[in-house]
């Protein structure tokens, strides 16, 4: 058998220029992040716990106090941030600098799959060989990279990234956002949520993410008739999780139908004048975030 050099023994360039192009993609991503002071990922691992509602409220609250805020909807297959922030549906302007984000409530700059898809269309990728599942995750990672790197975010004080459910998706997101200023893990007091979020904590710690925090959502239900707050879940998973892992609990947010109603109409409840315990708790969470990021004095 002829002996010839192996792949790793061949060091000369081939002219195919593939590694160069991948490097260029990552450089573009890094350049974009260099104009963003803080990237904050709102994640969980668990679905339906309020990641998007909390992302929308954080983004709106921060923008309303004059900060330059971007909101990236990393949930490609279940996008909801554009609606929750009432982002404009006008066509996105393309320039050599990138795609201009849509503008939402309080001036939040928003990018979401929702803005790109035909009405009610699911995310489907071109599929010449009817084997789309083979490259689906490659395409999703690429799409996410473009949402971050190819958007003309401008200079931002904060970029809020709304993560999709699933710890695998969180890992993918981290490969594109390797140094978030903070990851806020949304959980509920339920035992199921506690177990899933514990896995996310392990994953994030292994990845070396420096600032992890918990937000316990739906931590109680305030009866509109009598005004008493009762627990919504029998368990106290969020506090137990915080105690067991040492991840600080930054907020306990009550269940309040007004949170759902307000995000449904694209006007996050934090924008309403003080008064509701839910809005107050979300504003307190916003303060806590800024304090931890040393953007305000404690």
């Amino acid at each position, binding site marked *: 058998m002829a002996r010839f050099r192996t792949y790793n023994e*061949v060091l000369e360039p081939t002219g195919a220029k593939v590694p160069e192009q991948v490097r260029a993609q990552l450089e573009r991503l890094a350049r974009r992040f260099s104009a963003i002071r803080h990237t904050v990922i709102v994640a969980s691992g668990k679905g339906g716990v309020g990641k998007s509602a909390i992302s929308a409220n954080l983004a709106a609250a921060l923008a309303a106090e004059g900060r330059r805020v971007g909101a990236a909807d990393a949930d490609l297959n279940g996008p909801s941030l554009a609606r929750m922030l009432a982002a404009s549906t006008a066509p996105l302007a393309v320039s050599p600098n*990138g*795609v201009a984000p849509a503008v939402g409530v309080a001036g939040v700059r928003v990018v979401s799959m929702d803005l790109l898809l035909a009405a009610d269309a699911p995310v489907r990728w071109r599929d010449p060989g009817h084997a789309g599942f083979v490259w689906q995750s490659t395409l999703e990672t690429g799409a996410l990279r473009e949402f971050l790197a190819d958007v003309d975010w401008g200079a931002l004080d904060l970029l809020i990234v709304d993560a999709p459910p699933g710890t695998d998706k969180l890992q993918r997101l981290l490969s594109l956002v390797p140094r978030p200023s903070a990851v806020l893990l949304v959980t509920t007091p339920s035992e199921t949520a506690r177990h899933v979020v514990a896995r996310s904590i392990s994953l994030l710690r292994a990845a070396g993410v420096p600032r992890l925090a918990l937000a316990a959502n739906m931590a109680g239900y305030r009866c509109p008739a009598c005004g008493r707050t009762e627990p919504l879940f029998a368990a106290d998973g969020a506090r137990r999780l915080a105690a067991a892992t040492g991840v600080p609990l930054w907020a306990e947010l009550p269940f309040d139908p007004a949170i759902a109603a307000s995000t449904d109409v694209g006007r996050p409840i934090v924008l309403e004048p003080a008064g509701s315990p839910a809005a107050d708790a979300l504003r307190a969470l916003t303060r806590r975030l800024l304090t931890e990021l040393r953007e305000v004095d404690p």
Partner: protein
Amino acid sequence: MKFLCIGCDTVMDFTERQLPGDGTFAAVFSCARCGREVAMLANPMETQLVASLGVRIGGRTLAEQPMELVRQQLAEGRDDAFVEPAPASRGAIRWSDDARQRLANVPGFVRGMVKRIYSDYAAERGISLITPEVMDRARADLGLEGM
């Protein structure tokens, strides 16, 4: 992937890319010492795998466009999701009827980008009439499968 000319112990250089338009692509590599040429022929799945990475075998002659991957690969994008900048006054570039027809068949979601890319390609080469042949050449040069 690298191609080694065994007899010459020389890495073959990328020389040319061809996109016949049937979802496949070919890349030609040649040995600078003995002149031998090989064509790598990729089936539609292999072609799609490379495209999914957002790279072009042989490199790019045109910088990566903003959100190029999403625009090329998303199957059901909104027709008016993007607006392209108004074209720079680049003389009078005309489109032949059949070229125009072919452009009309490109999904609206990505048509603006495709139109601008072809117009820029023509302008850079002093081509005043865009025909399907020009589009074919541009597609191979630029590595635009499926456009």
